[in-house]
């Protein structure tokens, strides 16, 4: 075997190792119960069985959790992106006193580990009677997403030549028109990318949701998925089916932005 063939084979084996857990989740979801607990395990889900999905989709708890997750995610992503865009335009387009300070604050705030903050958030929400409510969770998520969204969008806005807006202004466009007709269409791809980032962050967040949402009626999907674990015998079929449905949009969205994630990281690290 040549060296290259060896390398290629290693690639395939390692790729299999990475994919296997995800494959096993999917295949468990599509297997009948008897095959899930069979010895030896069945590696190919055949015949494909949709029973677990049926059970999940027939569970009112799933729909409630989906509604909670969608409400929280859509609200936070929309509001957060809007707030962050306003901040980004201010930071990238105007010089004013305190600008550097604000940018610095955005960076420092992102360095505070969220895992350390659930105690004060828990107490704050309890005192304002928002504990267990989705509104409380949304506020917390806004604080997590706004700093990094504003930070990323600032870069996008700054990369668009200001001359375009100035030309529009010379032609008599108002500030609002210059923004809406000229800047906004050019920033749109950046808005899409940052929205996807915050979507993934909010949709998959576990710790805060677990600590702050104690009312089963308001469980978002991550907590619904973990609620399978508490039972005596974990019902792996339905659990993997929900996990599959939950992960699917994330993987799709992730594929859309992952190039940007790696490129941004390595550009900062190597060339600067």
């Amino acid at each position, binding site marked *: 075997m040549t060296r290259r063939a060896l390398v290629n084979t290693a690639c395939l084996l390692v790729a299999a190792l990475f994919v296997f857990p995800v494959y096993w989740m999917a295949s468990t979801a599509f297997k009948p119960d008897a095959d899930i607990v069979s010895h030896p*395990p069945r590696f190919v889900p055949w015949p494909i069985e949709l029973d677990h999905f049926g059970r999940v989709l027939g569970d009112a708890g799933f729909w409630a959790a989906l509604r909670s997750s969608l409400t929280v995610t859509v609200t936070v992503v929309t509001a957060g992106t809007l707030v962050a865009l306003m901040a980004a335009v201010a930071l990238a387009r105007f010089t004013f006193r305190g600008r550097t300070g604000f940018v610095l604050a955005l960076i420092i705030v992102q360095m505070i580990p969220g895992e350390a903050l659930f105690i004060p958030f828990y107490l704050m929400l309890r005192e304002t009677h928002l504990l267990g409510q989705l509104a409380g969770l949304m506020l917390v998520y806004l604080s997590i997403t706004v700093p990094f969204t504003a930070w990323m969008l600032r870069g996008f806005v700054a990369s668009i030549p200001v001359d375009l807006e100035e030309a529009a202004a010379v032609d008599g466009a108002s500030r609002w028109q210059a923004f809406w007709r000229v800047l906004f269409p050019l920033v749109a791809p950046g808005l899409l990318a940052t929205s996807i980032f915050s979507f993934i962050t909010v949709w998959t967040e*576990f710790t805060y949701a677990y600590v702050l949402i104690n009312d089963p009626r308001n469980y978002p999907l991550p907590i619904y998925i973990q609620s399978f674990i508490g039972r005596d015998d974990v019902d792996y079929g339905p659990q993997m089916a929900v996990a599959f449905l939950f992960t699917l949009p994330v993987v799709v969205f992730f594929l859309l932005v992952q190039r940007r994630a790696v490129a941004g990281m*390595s550009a900062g690290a190597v060339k600067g």
Partner: protein
Amino acid sequence: MTATIAPPVTPSSPPVAPVRRRPGALPYLLLIPATIAVFATLIYPVGRMVALSFQRGNLGDLITRRTVWVGLDNYRAVLTDGVFWTVLPRTIGFAAVCVSLTLLIATGCALLLQHADRWARVTLSVGMVVAWATPVLIGAVVFKWLFDAEFGVVNWLLTESGLCECRHRSWLGDQWSAFAVLVSIVVWGAVPFAALSIYAGLLTVPPELAEAARMDGAGAHRIFWSITFPLLRPIYAILTVLSVIWDTKVFPQVWLTTKGGPYQGTVMLGVYIYQKGIVSSQFGVASTIAVLMTVMLLGLSWIYVRAMRQEAR
């Protein structure tokens, strides 16, 4: 930034570019919502956390809204708490193992990517992106199923391949094997990002350098350590700091698999804060631990930001 370059300013001319209108209050107005979002939901909680660490914060105190300042009592309590001194080294050790394994395996994967044919490279990258995209909580849930004592596929594979008689091995029932499971969850999720970053770095290393070294008789080992690695050192520095931060604050991975068990054997800082604060309502003590953890991680982040800025120069 693409700010317009102002003409050289002479003392007599006003320092304002003629085309631009004065911003006035507009930028401040635009920043108000972001400031509220960040201040009310982050700066305030941080302040609250620090304040709580100097207060007695039992459930009773909080219900009656009596604030009792206790000075450094909480810090004294935490720093003389035997459990804290087992949890802290355990967390650091866990992070150290995870980070080393992540970087080691990621380097291997990056080198594989570099030397493989196109089809194999694409296969491996796609595989890694799938693992990377999988949410942390799903990774934890799926690994728990993989390592299931009765019907888990890991036990079956180990038994079939003759490595051990593991038909009913309970991985989460023993402290060290539970750790192995936790490490595998973290490393599986962390390698893709590191590997793809290192690979992106490898692509920027001029091939002529390695070629020249090969002509001079250097082996692959020598080339990696004397040429490639020094060039990629900034990437490794950043990946190390980021991974240490991420792996120190693990919560979902632990909570969804072992819940800190068996017998509190896998409790790490995040879980300890949760147990002290939310479970046993000792909010003052829990905040103190959280403050200590924040200071630790902020120190690391500071190194990270400094490294980034040095690279940017």
